[in-house]
């Protein structure tokens, strides 16, 4: 074990002061040190995207970033999407269009989609398909995920 560093992570507007080894990934820190277990870990190779969170406005695979690199940055996770009891349009769209089955990859897809739609509200269908190909889902066959994200995009433009 190596020396731990004290850092503060700002997740969904709330500060978490934690001590982590330099090798601690952001994904592990979010889940284990900050107790936000909605972010899931699917491969730790940066391939499946289950651990996608938004860091300073950009979707990021939190298994490929060290926790210490995220200090001072605004981190958003699935737990921060809903406002009180009102679901974010992307969450409602995933429910309405059956964009999830087991739900394990869902937080990663939600954060990927939100990150992209906030940056590019009028993204074309082709570009959206490119973006959604970043993450893996084993249950849905993607068709309903694509439908849900398009519906959410329309809702978010309103």
């Amino acid at each position, binding site marked *: *074990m190596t020396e731990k560093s004290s850092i503060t992570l700002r997740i969904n507007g709330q500060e978490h002061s934690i001590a982590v*080894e330099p*090798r*601690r990934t952001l994904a592990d820190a979010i*889940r*284990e040190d900050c107790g*936000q*277990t*909605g*972010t*899931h*870990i*699917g*491969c*730790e*190779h940066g*391939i*499946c995207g*289950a651990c996608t969170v938004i860091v300073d406005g950009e979707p990021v695979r939190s298994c490929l970033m060290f926790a210490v690199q995220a200090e001072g940055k605004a981190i958003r*996770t*699935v*737990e921060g*999407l*809903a406002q009180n009891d009102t*679901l974010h349009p992307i*969450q409602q769209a*995933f*429910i*309405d269009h*059956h964009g*999830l*089955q*087991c*739900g*394990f*990859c*869902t*937080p990663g897809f*939600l954060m990927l989609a939100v990150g992209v739609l906030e940056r590019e509200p009028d993204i074309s269908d082709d570009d959206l*398909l*490119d973006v*959604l*190909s*970043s*993450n*893996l*889902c*084993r*249950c*849905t*066959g*993607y*068709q*309903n*995920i*694509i439908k849900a994200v398009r519906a959410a995009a329309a809702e978010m433009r309103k």
Partner: protein
Amino acid sequence: MSSPETKGSGLKWVGRAIRRLEDPALVTGQGRFTADLAAAHWVRFVRSPVAAGTIKGISAPDGAHVITAADLSGVKPIVPMLHKFSYRPVEQSVLADGQVRYVGEPVAIAVAASEEEAEDLADLVEIDIDETAPLVDARAALAAGARQIHPQAPDNVILEGNVETPGFDGLWNSAAKVVSIEARSRRQNATPMEARAGHASYDAPTGRITLTCTTQMPHLMRTAIADILGMRESDLRVIAPDVGGGFGQKMSLCAEYVALVWLARKLKSSVAWTEDRRENLIASFHSRDQYITLEAAFDSNARLLALRADIVANVGAYSCFPTTSGVEPLMAMAEMPGPYDVQQYRCRARGVLTNTCTMAAYRGVSRPVITFTLERLMDKAAAAFAIDPVDIRRRNLIAAFPYTSAMGLVYDEATYKETLEMAVEAIDVPAFRARQQSARAKGHYPGIGFATFSERTGYGSPAFAARGMAITPGWETVHLTVDPSGFVEARIGSSPHGQGLRTTLAQIIADEIGVAPELIRVVHGDTDTAPYGWGTFASRSLVISGGATLLAARKVRAKLMKIASHMLEADPEDIVLESGAAKVAGTDRSVTIAAMAREAYTQTHRFNGEIEPGLTESGTYDPPGTFSNACHVAIVAVDTETGFVKIERFLVAEDAGRIINPMIADGQVHGGVAQGIGNALLEEIVYDESGGILTANLADYMPPTAHEMPSIELHHLETPSTQSITRAKGLGEGGSIGAPAAVVNAINDALSPFGIQIDEMPATPQRIRAALRNAGRAA
């Protein structure tokens, strides 16, 4: 999308695409998965780096907490058992004891206070192994003189099934034409997005252990682990919390979970393990590694007379519990004739032990492989008779029901021909052929492929008993309670993990007792609260747990009618139960279910002994099984320069009986087709000659992404099942069963001008290019 309000009377909820009750928690990050639990101790399994050999020694740093087989005295080996098919009961030690038999086999356990420290420690554990040359391929393991992998299986054959219908030879010899195929299905990993994970904790006051793990079969995990460790079952509680996909990989017993329970008892503490993706790909269960030789005898009208099959399934290093490694070869043998009317059948099916990861169930179990084989053969036969591939299917599909197969399986009513015609019409074959002609003139190669198949679903204990399984699953029980506030809770033995069963069972209950699904909670996945049951696998839960739910709900309904009759002083025949109340028809007299429930618990003295107190009823269901069916059609474009295949269109015409929730049903088909497309084009676990795995991450083992998926067009027929009291048939596996055959048939159709045949899946660009190169050389 339907509104969630109750409308009128009669069947109000079944058949509607209501939103899933599971979803609000899952989209807000409030799902609870095994790896979310904290633990005092973390473990890392030290796995064999070599495929075969004898362990000479295991060394670890002084003072480190490392467990080996020598520490596990009194722990029995895992010995799955079949009482038929010359099955040889091979033994698997929880940690390798003396021999290692595949890369990834658990040899030792590193225990530490954190996951990282356990990983660091595991890196320092050295295993000295005297290596032997491994047997990786099933044919190599079958070869005369091949080294014996287990003492119980002298020729490396763990089981062998043989069938021959009376009169086979006579009819075979009368054939006008015999068509054959040598099919090869490469190895796959089911790849649930959540890999395996387990957490065992010790409860000091009771001495009980709670194992939380990502399983499809919590009760059977309890039974198996208690047996192996010599515990009372009641001292072990198994919880399957939210489970991130299973697809069959999570129905077998993992040695790792046995080890966690053993450790939690030893340490009197909590112990956790989260598998990483590499471990999942190399050491969780594999599937589909088969060679099938299939020959078909036809009369002069291209009518199928007889089938002859030789099935060789590579079952890996050990047998899986509870199904045993019979799961693939025996399923292939039983269902090879598929949707075709053929009464003469001879088959030899063998399970072959090798130095590879253990094979177990994966969505569709063997049927993607046998459907691939049979449907490729039908296309070859069509070519041999110079008739259309659709036409040869028309001539041979089963059309009269009930139909008893050559293997004695009874097919209930289905729509094999109707779904084929539906698909042919929708895809517009003549238009495609015209386009194909003009495309070929420009050097483009589109192709069309069909697959028709039957999908045996919802089968109870008699079907499993036919395999001679020492553990014979099948039935399901549901306990249904209306609590004193009128809220309804169903406790079920099935263990859904993405299938939406909480919603569909609530729909069934809602119709029966007249309450909205939002007032119904379905509880599952905890052996302390759910009745004993077999979990979720084999497209069984909606049929079997759904049937048990309906039976329990009918009893609750009958009791509510009695209570209503008593409270309203009305004849039961005049009472209707709907929208949360019992009403006397034609009057304004009514009583709510909540009031009746309160009465059932707190005012029983008024029942004068005529009604039993409380409001809980049980239903148990053990059906014979039913057959869903479908026709899949793929249109592909093959780039002959690169071997790249693009799926331009994918159409499914399917019949799964009565549909409880169309949205959920469609989702199951979409997901199955995606896995089938992965199976057809992309996914392959590759071993090298030394038994090492070359595909140990998701960049090398490639499940499809959104890019590879076409939009799937769905067409439905609903033939209510006579073998299922809800009239529903199962449909969890069909998508994965039909898609590989349809896609590879389409590739072959595309490449027909080159005179090549691709009878192997996945049909990767490398294989397509190799076939084209060889054809070019031959020309």
